[in-house]
């Protein structure tokens, strides 16, 4: 099997590489030192298994796994952790593979043999149980074949066309694979639905005003040029939007 090692600590990566190197049936195809790097390498190298440390700077292991699991034909994921009782409980409860550090030979072999792809829901459940918020801090997009992460804090709104969801953020627009429905469920705390096809970041709303046609529209802060967005608030959602604006 081809394996990608992800850990922010060099000695921990060294050890896994040594151990995997001794087994003829496995090969290390790459090593990443953080979540961003891991996503790019997983995309490029197409490993069979990703060994993923949980506690990492930037995007932690669990969020990285959630982005990876959204890949087309995603690799299997096995977490590695030194000590995290919450995570271990969550892994046990959701039948997610993990290895404890210091890593033991047999345990590694077992985990690799049983390594399985993880569903987004499973990882969401793990995230929630480990005391993390259960929502990702980024969404993942591909721009010219290159994988890119957009911080949720930079997102102004998600707009659904017929087929795709466009994420509008401080630095432009990108297409993402997530459905508007799943985005709404995941980011309900910070986004509000304004009509059937748009979710808007609540703290980006500058004003709620009527346009020339007499329809209610939201005006967003930090949205300069770009194409005009259809940010009309549909009648069904007016009350909800007003309530969320008051509560912010």
């Amino acid at each position, binding site marked *: 099997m081809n394996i990608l090692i992800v850990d*922010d600590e060099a000695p921990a990566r060294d050890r896994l590489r040594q151990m995997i190197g001794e087994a003829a049936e496995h090969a290390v195809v790459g090593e990443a030192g953080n979540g961003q790097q891991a996503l790019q390498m997983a995309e490029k190298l197409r490993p069979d298994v990703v060994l993923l440390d949980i506690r990492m*700077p930037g995007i932690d292991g669990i969020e990285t796994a959630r982005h990876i699991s959204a890949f087309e034909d995603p690799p299997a994921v096995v977490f590695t952790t030194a000590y995290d009782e919450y995570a271990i409980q969550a892994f046990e409860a959701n039948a997610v593979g993990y290895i404890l550090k210091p890593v033991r030979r047999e345990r590694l072999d077992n985990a690799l043999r049983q390594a399985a792809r993880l569903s987004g829901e499973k990882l969401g459940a793990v995230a929630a149980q480990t005391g993390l918020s259960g929502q990702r801090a980024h969404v993942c997009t591909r721009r010219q074949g290159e994988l890119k992460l957009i911080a949720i804090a930079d997102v102004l709104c998600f707009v659904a066309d017929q087929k795709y969801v466009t994420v509008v953020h401080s630095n432009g627009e990108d297409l993402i694979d997530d459905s508007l429905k799943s985005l709404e469920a995941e980011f309900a705390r910070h986004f509000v639905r304004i009509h059937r096809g748009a979710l808007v970041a609540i703290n980006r709303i500058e004003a709620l005003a009527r346009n020339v046609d007499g329809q209610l529209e939201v005006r967003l802060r930090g949205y300069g040029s770009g194409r005009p967005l259809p940010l009309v608030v549909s009648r069904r959602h007016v009350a909800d939007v007003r309530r969320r604006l008051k509560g912010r």
Partner: protein
Amino acid sequence: MIAASETTNPQAQAYLPDFCAAGAVLIIVLVATLIAMVLTLAARPETGAFLGDLGQMAMYVVWMALLGTGLLCKLRSWIERFGKTQAFVIAFLLLLLLCVVVAEGTWQLTRAFSDIVIISDSHVGFLTRTIAISSIVIALAMRYLYISSEWRRSIVLEAQSRISALQALIRPHFLFNSLNTIASLTRSDPARAEEAVEDLADLMRANLGSPKNRVTLKEELEVAAIYQRIEKLRLGDRLRVRWNVNNLPMRALIPGLTIQPLLENAIYHGIELLAEGGEVVVTGSRSADDLEIEIRNPVAAVPNRRKDGNQMALSNIRQRFDLAYGHRATVDVDESPLHYSVRLRFPHEEQVA
């Protein structure tokens, strides 16, 4: 900033005993009767009149004592809200007021209902004597309660600090990560692996020593340096520590295991979550009687850190400082979006050889 000496245990906070408890009421009645005896004996009763006089006196004193007990039973939680010393002063004033009221009531009642003279004294004289005697007795009682509450508090604190010192033993996360690092180094760099094992052993030994004892700053800084060496193996260039501690008198005493856990916090909650790492700055300074040590670290802007462990180490250090120095030491936390710092301030004391 967070105030230094917050006591979390409600038991440690109760200054006054529970006056509603049956045991307490019994003891108070007994003590009141004894006081009545003393007063009656001191008044030199005529032969044969002792029991009669005692009866009257006991009636008077026990009434006061029971009413006072009832008052404190009802008002205890309200009184304690004012803080320790204030609570005792308020209790004293309340009881004294009660005695005056009872004395006045007794005076009026005996005048209204009895033909014989029970109180052979002027109105003012009677009230004055009652106030004088009861203020002395109440003051003594308050003093006794104050001392025993201090004593109880120190026992509770000591027990707590002993428990939390056990909990403060090196974070498992650190231990397992270090072991993993050592496992990795045994192949790639056996000499360093050996050093790491020695360092880890020293660190564990320091952790297993009695945490109540104070050590010299020199020893404490050495433990922290050993800890830093182990973490350095794991985190590489991401971990940088600047020690500005040359101003500190190395012979000064500090409760053991204070700087190392704070450095551990700085790394666990700060440096480890920064992709580029960062610099922990430890700064020591001294004023006339106090020493001050600040441990400051950068933190990641993303709010995805869990804080539980952090609180434990901090409250543990607070408790131990409280036990060692009382109110003469402070532990302050300063938090900004990009930095976190803990400042210890404690009296400069050195070992008397």
